[in-house]
């Protein structure tokens, strides 16, 4: 197991290196002036000096990598001038995380609940209704929901504020209220995905032989569903729930823009449009780490949750 984890971590580091290099190259190939048009010549000179912008690209790449591996991610050039990139990101994480956690808190239970209902009522009107909702929510991107929610509930009806309330530092009621729409927009897709998986997995489990045996033991339909079928269908479900932490970060890029949330997603968009390349690479690096880690955690969690892999698969895992 430990050997397996070490292998995976090494592979992860190589992947990260490739990602960072690609990010650097792509960002620098985007046409545009890093310093910003119309800057004073002195300022331009000072900045080019400070960030080695006039060196040949390969040389810049080497300096960049050297700094990167000593965990010096550089500083923001134009978006938040002279602030270390690391601090900028750290500054943005709490808000994004807050939203995403709220979203997950409603996504997972609702998704599981709808999935269970649909599986138990398979091919009945309830199931069909849920399926229609699922198809709708899976296929419509979150920013469309965000825009629609904002238009109807915030603009037309005025029930919710248009933008996120930023005045209050702590979690006040007004802030929570303003978070409702973005959290909803972030959640629909996830709820639908979980519902779809849960329905399929549970339906399969319900028709399995061990369900018959548990009924034969004298468990009622309800008891055997809860004790055996749902338990078994949770295993494959982990595979999609864990990466959801990542998906929500990605999804928030546009949703955050719509609701004016100064989180990681918005930062990404801003840094790219400002050609603030240190910041962009660092943010993308942050995304990559999260996604690679979630894949690793999924793989490891299988071993913890499923006894067939935990005990039996010691050798086959590699």
């Amino acid at each position: 197991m430990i050997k397996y984890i070490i292998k995976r971590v090494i592979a992860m580091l190589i992947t990260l290196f490739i990602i960072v290099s690609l990010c650097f190259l792509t960002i620098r190939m985007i046409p545009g002036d890093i310093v910003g048009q119309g800057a004073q010549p002195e300022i331009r000179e000072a900045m080019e000096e400070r960030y080695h912008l006039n060196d040949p690209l390969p040389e810049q790449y080497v300096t960049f990598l050297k700094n990167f591996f000593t965990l010096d991610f550089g500083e923001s050039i134009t978006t938040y001038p002279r602030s270390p990139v690391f601090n900028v990101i750290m500054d943005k994480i709490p808000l994004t995380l807050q939203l995403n956690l709220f979203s997950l808190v409603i996504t997972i239970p609702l998704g599981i609940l709808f999935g269970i209902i649909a599986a138990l009522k398979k091919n009945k009107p309830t199931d069909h209704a849920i399926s229609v909702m699922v198809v709708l929510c899976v296929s419509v991107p979150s920013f469309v929901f965000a825009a629609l929610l904002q238009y109807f509930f915030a603009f037309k009806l005025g029930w919710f504020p248009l933008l996120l309330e930023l005045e209050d530092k702590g979690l006040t009621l007004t802030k929570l209220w303003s978070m409702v729409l973005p959290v909803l927009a972030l959640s629909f897709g996830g709820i639908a995905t979980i519902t779809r998986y849960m329905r399929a997995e549970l339906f399969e489990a319900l028709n399995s032989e061990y369900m018959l045996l548990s009924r034969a033991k004298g468990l009622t339909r309800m008891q055997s569903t809860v004790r055996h079928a749902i338990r078994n269908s949770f295993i494959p479900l982990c595979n999609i729930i864990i990466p959801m932490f990542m998906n929500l970060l990605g999804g928030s890029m546009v949703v955050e823009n719509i609701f004016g949330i100064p989180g990681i997603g918005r930062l990404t968009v801003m840094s790219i449009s400002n050609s603030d390349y240190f910041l962009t690479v660092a943010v993308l690096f942050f995304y990559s780490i999260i996604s690679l880690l979630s894949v690793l955690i999924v793989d490891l969690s299988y071993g913890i949750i499923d006894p067939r892999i935990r005990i039996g698969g010691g050798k086959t895992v590699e």
Partner: protein
Amino acid sequence: MDENRILEVKNLNLHFKTYSGNVQAIRGVDFHLNRGETLAIVGESGSGKSVTIKAVTKLLPDNAVIDSGEILYEGQDILPMDDKKFSHLRGNDISLIFQDPLSSLDPVMKIGKQIMEAILIKKQGTKREAAAKALELMRAVGIPEPEKRFNEYPFQFSGGMRQRIVIAIALACNPKLLICDEPTTALDVTIQSQILDLIKDMQRERDLSVIFITHDLGVVANVADRVCVMYAGKIVEVGTVEDIFYDPRHPYTWSLLASMPSLNTSSEDKLMVIPGSQPNMLVPPKGDAFAARNRYAMKIDFEREPPMFRISDTHYAATWLEHPDAPKIGIPALLRHRIDEQLREEATS
């Protein structure tokens, strides 16, 4: 009501709703099981034997509809009972062993816990008592090192061992009626006989009444007291093992027996094959369902369904050949020869 009858099925009719129409799976099944007796239900795949016992245990799939009939367990009709009420009987009084031990245990629950669950759900003792009982059962069904195996998962067990666990689960609440649905089909031949012996031992020790579903006549001869032969959702012949094996009357029973190899069958001998296949139960044929495959079919077989003719107090067969006016055909020569041989062997041994 006969006190000695633990189970009685009366005129059971059942169909499955499917997209292509209603499949008449069970068409008027009647049988009974006496206390302490082993009844074998034999027939080819699709003859309705598994459906019959699923009806008896109320584990029918949702698209099954019972049209008429009664299923009396100790004189009590179980058909009108709801899930909760019947769940009380199931496990406590009536237990089941299934065909496929490889998939009938919950893959992510420890073996010991699965046995304990059966005991705990019936509130037959505390957790500690249940654990002790589970260990005792595991020992009884022949699991070596039960203490160690208690905390293992099903995938760590072989097929035969899993079937032993399933038997342990079935016996956990000291049932009176044990239903075995082809319990040895998925197992190797050597394991098969071990499992059969185990079931027989358990029956003797615990005074169980057993229904044994199988298509393997060898198994029937080994375990059963009485035999029901099913064809196309009907019981066509019923009798004691001796009746069925030494004095079969229904042409379908003849064909079944003749198509089974015996110890004396040499590799040159050809086994009998039953021509054709079972009728489509979406539109059950008129008359005797077996008529189209029956060499001895008479005109009336295609027109009117034969009633059950009484041969002796224990032996009944649904074939027009038993009608007083029917020509005397008698058992086919090949089968006659084989039965005589067997009788001779038994006489000498």
